[in-house]
Structure formats: C-alpha cells, structure tokens
C-alpha cells in the first residue's frame, strides 16, 4: 500500500520521521511546484536522492563535484551502470571507494536538505522499491541528524507563524522612526517587499506579488517589525463578536466505580452478541 498525500498536509519532516520510525524501505517520489525529487530509503535510512533537474547517475555526481568535466562525462557510455563505473574508477586508481562513498553521501544529504523547503507538492512512497542501477550510500545515512535539522527549521517557521499569524493585515512605515533605523541594510528581497508596502496591500498580496513563500514573507516582515521599520495595521472589527452564546448543558448521569465497571461489562457482552 503506497503512502500518498500532499506536503502541504504532511510535511517532508513528518514523512522522514515516519519512514525513520517505521524503518521503511522504498522510494519516495515528490512532485512539487517547480521541484521534483526521488529519495530512497533502506530500513529507515537514507540511501539515495536526486532532484528532477539533476542527473542522478554517478556521472552527474562526478561532474557536479568537479571530479570530471562535462566533456569527460559525455565520453562515458550511457549504458554503463553506476556500479560498473564506480568499480572502473576505483580499479584505475582515479578515486578511492571512500571518496565515492563520501561523494554519494554529500550529494544525497544536499538534495534532502533542500527538500525541507518544499512545502507544497504531491508525494508518493512506493514500499520495497529501490533504484536498480544507482550507487547507493554505503553505509546508509542515519536520519536522526537530518530530521533534527529539519525540525529546527520547522520550529523556526512555526515561531514566525506565531509571531505573525495573520497575513491578511497590512503594513505601514512607522511614523517616527527611531535610532534603530539608522544603520538598516536591506537585502534585495527586503527591498522588493518594501516597494509594495502600502495600507492597501495585505502581507499576503505582497507575498504573492513577489512570488514568495509564507515562510519567506514572514521572516522578512518579522525582521522589519523587530527593526522598527514597519508597523502592522489590524483589519477593522474583531473576533469577539463571532463568539456566540452556548446552549445549556444537559444533565450528566454519574456512576460509582463499581457501577461503571458493571455497565462496561454489560456493554461488552451486548456488543459481542450483536
């Protein structure tokens, strides 16, 4: 039975945690907006990962790590499997097995670390399916540290969400900026946000206009708020009026402990016989 869902509902960190705890073997396919990836696991440990745009073969890894040039890569026959190529490289003393293992581990970790930023996209975990002809991390990579790092990022995101829960509010520049503003240096992304600050634009609209994620916009706005550069403008009205009166509570029947035990046993007998 495949695990399917959307990262918007079940995050990449949660998926890694599930795979780790359940010691699953298989391949996780992620198809996000502008990002696709395949990540493989053996008994809950990471063995392989590649993104949609990158060549997941050993040749691609060798080129990206600068071990060979793209021209040299083109001379390697396409039908040569990763295992054959790695054996050839080691036999020819061009690379040690340790070099190869380290390169695969670094590549796999890099891919997975980037996937923590993908918060929307379809995922599907195919159990007991591993890439046939790819060089897998040996030994497999323990997910503990990777999950901890992902969790740290997730917590940062949650903290920002707590600090700035409502993206429908608007921003305005502070009327009387104080000394804190004197040495503010803004990044390109911050300038892009600043250019849209206007009481008519909600934070969400600014985010959409700049093609940013909720995490990015929250981080930038939170920084500006802390620097005293901008202020939040709350929408008119409040939530208090939405809270209605509650209907009266019906009387509750109470039992002594022995009565309750008797009731539960009678219920068990009755349901068993149904």
């Amino acid at each position, binding site marked *: *039975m*495949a*695990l*399917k*869902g*959307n990262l*918007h*509902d*079940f995050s990449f960190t*949660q998926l890694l*945690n*599930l795979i780790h*705890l*359940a010691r699953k073997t298989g391949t996780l396919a992620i198809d996000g907006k502008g990002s696709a990836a395949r990540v493989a696991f053996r008994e809950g440990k990471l063995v392989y990962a590649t993104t949609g745009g990158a060549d997941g073969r050993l040749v691609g890894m060798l080129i990206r790590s600068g071990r060979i040039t793209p021209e040299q890569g083109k001379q390697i026959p396409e039908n040569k499997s990763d295992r054959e190529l790695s054996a050839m490289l080691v036999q020819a003393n061009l690379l040690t097995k340790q070099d190869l293992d380290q390169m695969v581990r670094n590549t796999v970790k890099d891919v997975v670390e980037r996937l923590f930023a993908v918060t929307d996209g379809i995922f599907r975990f195919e159990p007991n399916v591993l890439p046939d002809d790819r060089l897998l991390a040996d030994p497999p990579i323990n997910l503990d540290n990777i999950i901890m790092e992902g969790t740290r990022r997730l917590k940062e995101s949650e903290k920002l969400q707590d600090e700035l829960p409502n993206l429908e509010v608007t921003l305005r520049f502070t009327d009387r900026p104080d000394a804190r503003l004197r040495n503010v240096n803004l990044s390109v992304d911050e300038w892009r946000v600043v250019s849209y600050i206007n009481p008519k634009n909600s934070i969400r609209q600014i985010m959409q206009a700049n093609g940013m994620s909720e995490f990015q916009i929250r981080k930038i706005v939170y920084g500006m708020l802390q620097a005293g550069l901008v202020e939040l403008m709350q929408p008119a009205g409040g939530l208090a009026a939405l809270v*209605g009166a*509650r*209907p009266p*509570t*019906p009387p*509750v*029947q*109470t*039992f002594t*402990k022995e009565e*309750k*035990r008797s*009731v*539960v*046993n*009678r*219920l*068990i*007998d*009755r*349901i*068993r016989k*149904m």
Partner: protein
Amino acid sequence: MQTVKMVITGPFSAGKTEFIRTISEIDVVSTDRKITTDAERSQKDQTTVAMDFGRITVDDDLVLYLFGTPGQKRFDFMWEILSEGMLGFIVIVDSSRPETFREARSILDTFRGYAATPYVIAANKQDHEDAWQPDDLRIALKIDGAIKVLPCVANDKEAVKSVLLELLYSILDTMDQSAD
C-alpha cells in the same frame, strides 16, 4: 433506566455517520444538511450540522447512546456539550486523506482537553486503495503507543463492533490502573 454515551468524532467526511448507522439498532437520527462550500461538496453531498444519534439497548435498565459530532470546525461549539459525561470517545480518521490528519490531531487534542476519558483511534476506509496503514497513521498523528489505533471500515459491522469493544476494554484497563 441508566444511560451512557460514547462520542464519535473526527474530521469532516471521516465516516462518523456511517459508523453509527452500521451499529445502531434504530435509524440514526441525523441532522444532515446540504453542503454549502465547493471544497466540502467535492467530498460528499450532505453533512452533519448538529449531531448524529444512535442507540444500542443493553437490557431493560441500560442503554448506550452514540453521538456523532459535526465534522466541520465551525460547529465545534457543539463538541464540548456532546462530550459532557461521555464514557469514552472514538476519533474516526479517513486513512486515505492525509490532508485531514492535522485536523484529526487537533480534534483529538480538543477532546482530551474536555475530559480525561479513554479513547481509541479508528483508522477508517481501510478498504480504500490509498488508505494509510494504522501503524503509519499512529506515527503521522503522533499517537502514544498506549493508545489503540484500530483498522476500520465504517460500513462493516464486525469492524465497528471491534472498535467499540476495544474502547470498552480500554475503559476497563483504565479503571484497573486507577484502582492500583
């Protein structure tokens, strides 16, 4: 006449009404209404806006009532009222819709806050090809190992009986532990 109640809760369209309908000896008193939002309509045509109400008569002196909560968050003011004096509760989760897991966890936390009564998780729609297995659901929902996460198909009477019985066994276990 003694009456006891169990509450059947869970996200919208998880299968609460079906669960009660399968086991109740009376036609379920349901207050289904036409769904008004497109997102909800894509899941089903009608939904429970107040509560479902089923009954199992044990004997001349004892009746079990099953109350199904409305699934949509905007009716959550009903939940606390329904949970008053419950013997235990069942959280029904649609195992094939991970987009509802976060809400299921939130509902579970809310009900745990109302009363320290025993509960079980019913991993419903296990007959669906996309259903997550109960063990995976346990991890996804961060359910403690001491809590039962049970496979369920809400229109299968034996499966529903099994979930109810497991909840009753949990209630007995809790009583035994508190007696120690």
